[in-house]
């Protein structure tokens, strides 16, 4: 064996090399369980795997029969038992029933929208203005405006940001036989329901 090369098949592995291999494998196996411990880092309250009620500020669940057309409420989602956390901007959502001209009269899920209230520009809280001539989401801070139909910013600084930072995160809704509105488990990614404070790609996978 004058030439050094890769060990050929069938060549005997020396005892020393074998030991080294075992030690390396043992080290890796020892530390493998800690990979999963990385789940310590993200906040688990953001993960919701079940349907949640659209709980209006008065404590009742939003219902398609009672919720007025061209109207909005802010909803806490995911709701916790901690009042400080519930005040958090990142948990505030605008629950909108669209105006008539945008299909708000429909008695199904297409009449409703639910967008994160955190403005994509600098994280102020925008809200929906139902006044005639407005009928749009407006941010009080720098005047970003959002289309209630899609959640896309059409004016102001947020509209200039490159995608996905120009479309609001959106929650998917469902209406049961009693007319109660439910929030489906979200997929927090720019291609899914979006990332609060960052945005969403329009036409992502989970959009209705």
């Amino acid at each position, binding site marked *: 064996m004058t030439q050094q090369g890769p060990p050929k098949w069938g060549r005997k592995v020396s005892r020393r090399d074998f030991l080294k291999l075992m030690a390396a494998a043992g080290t890796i196996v020892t530390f493998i369980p800690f990979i999963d411990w*990385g789940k310590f*880092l*993200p*906040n688990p*309250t*953001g993960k919701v795997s079940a349907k949640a009620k659209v709980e209006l500020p008065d404590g009742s669940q939003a219902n398609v029969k009672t919720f007025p057309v061209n109207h909005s409420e802010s909803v806490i989602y995911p709701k916790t038992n901690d009042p*400080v*956390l519930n*005040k*958090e*901007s*990142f*948990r505030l959502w605008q629950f909108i029933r669209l105006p008539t001209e945008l299909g708000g009269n429909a008695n199904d899920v297409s009449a409703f929208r639910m967008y994160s209230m*955190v403005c994509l520009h*600098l*994280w*102020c*809280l925008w809200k929906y203005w139902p006044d005639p001539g407005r009928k749009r989401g407006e941010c*009080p*801070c*720098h*005047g970003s405006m959002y289309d209630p139909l899609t959640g896309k910013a059409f004016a*102001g*600084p947020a509209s*200039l*940001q*490159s995608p996905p*930072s120009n479309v609001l995160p959106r929650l998917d809704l469902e209406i049961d036989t009693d007319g109660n509105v439910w929030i489906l488990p979200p997929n*927090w*990614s*720019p291609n899914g329901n979006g*990332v*609060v*404070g*960052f945005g969403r790609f329009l036409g992502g996978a989970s959009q209705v």
Partner: protein
Amino acid sequence: MSATVQDENGLVAFFRWVYAGIDRTIFMGLKFTFPGRFVSPLGFLGMLTFVVFIILGITGALLMLWYEPELDRAWDSVQNINNTIPFGFHIRNIHYHASNAMVMLALLHLYYQYFSGRYKIRNEIIWVTGVIIGVLTILEAFTGYDIIFSERAELAISIAASLTNSIPILGPQMRDAFFGGGFHDFVLRFYAFHVFFLPIALLGLMVVHFPRFLVFDVPMVMAITGAIMITGGVFPVDLGTKFVPTSPPGITVPEWYLTGLYAFLRTQYDKFITGVAWPGLLIFTLMIMPFIDRYRKFSWKDRPLVTAIGITSIAQIMVTTYWGFYIDPNIQKSLLERLVIDPIFFYSVMLLLVPLSFGFTYMMITLAKNSEASAKLQPKKPAAKSSINIPVNWIYVVFVALLAFQIYLNIAAYYAVLNGMKNFSLFIVGIIMLVFAGMFHIYRHGKAMAKAPPPPPPAKPIGPPAGAKPLPTAPRSGPATPPTTPAKPLSPPPTQKSTSASATQTSTGPASSAVPGSSPTDRSE
């Protein structure tokens, strides 16, 4: 303490014993030099940065006693520190201005090492760790002003989070993992980063970064401390406005060391490219510079390309930093027009700076070489030494006068606190620090004079260390020497005085390497 009976000076013996015990520790690997006369601070900017880091650690630890990293209490607790807690204003201002000073000193340190060529040839590890330390320093300062949770802090947090989100594929997960799920998590975690993760990483890296030769110049350290306090007194840092997500904030810009990055973001280009890729490229380029710089020589004059790259970077940093600050004052225009920077204009200016900087470098090098050549034609003058030549008696007079001045200042600072003039008292305390720096300088000057033989010897190889250029034979005399004895070696004072001296020092390699154990690269930090 009833320790030793036969030794009447038991305390001194104890200190000697402690000092001898340090022999077994890692500190003996470091060579501390306390300069015996004025030395240009350019050579030990790193040590000054470290001292400011320690100041930040002390003031920061004190602030931790009152600060509350909670979403709805953070700003109020800072307000409490600033307005209610006695001397909270002082501590907070020192902490804030020291953070700026640390970033500034680190930058100066970086560029001095770069232009003087000390960063290469066996100093690569020190350089690379230094660049990482610099980045962490900026992150440390950044997380610090974020946790006040003022409007400016909120701007910074939102930028940090959206930049992390913009990282391809794993961005949102990384944001979730490191920053958490909302404002509450952000404040708490930035606090954790600020007070533990980043400082501990900084300390660990500093262990690697420290060279074995360190200069601790008491007057300069005190002067820097005083300057920080005086800046705090003259420009006390404001609280900013508490961030309320439903009310329009005033126009804020980030801290000065991040406005350059902010200018890129204001072009509204893709966040990842402008906010992550560009700065990453800058940091990466900085890191590999010593490996690119293949010049055999050290002086900036002999490394035209490297010098030109350095000048270009300075020019671009200055222009982008200013541009990030600049917001069109014309309030007739919409906010958007005022805030958004035209990317084509912006990037073409940055490109234009490259040939300008190269031309400027070429001009400087030509001028320097010309003046060097003309200096050689003239008869050699003895190096102009701007030492203070006051008679010994007058040193005592000056000393007493300074002491009296300090007493007066102490009283003034006390009354200023009583009258609620917080920034004035901080200012006065800064002056006290400066006076102390002057006093220490006079002290070591007087000490050197006392030790100097009456007739100035021309060049004695083995003389008292007070002379200008004796060899430092004493450092090897053993660790048992207590640091306060006059026999403690004083480093051979580097003769550089002005900014051009950096070049002369490095270019006159043989001259300075005649002094054993102190080649130009040794005396850094």
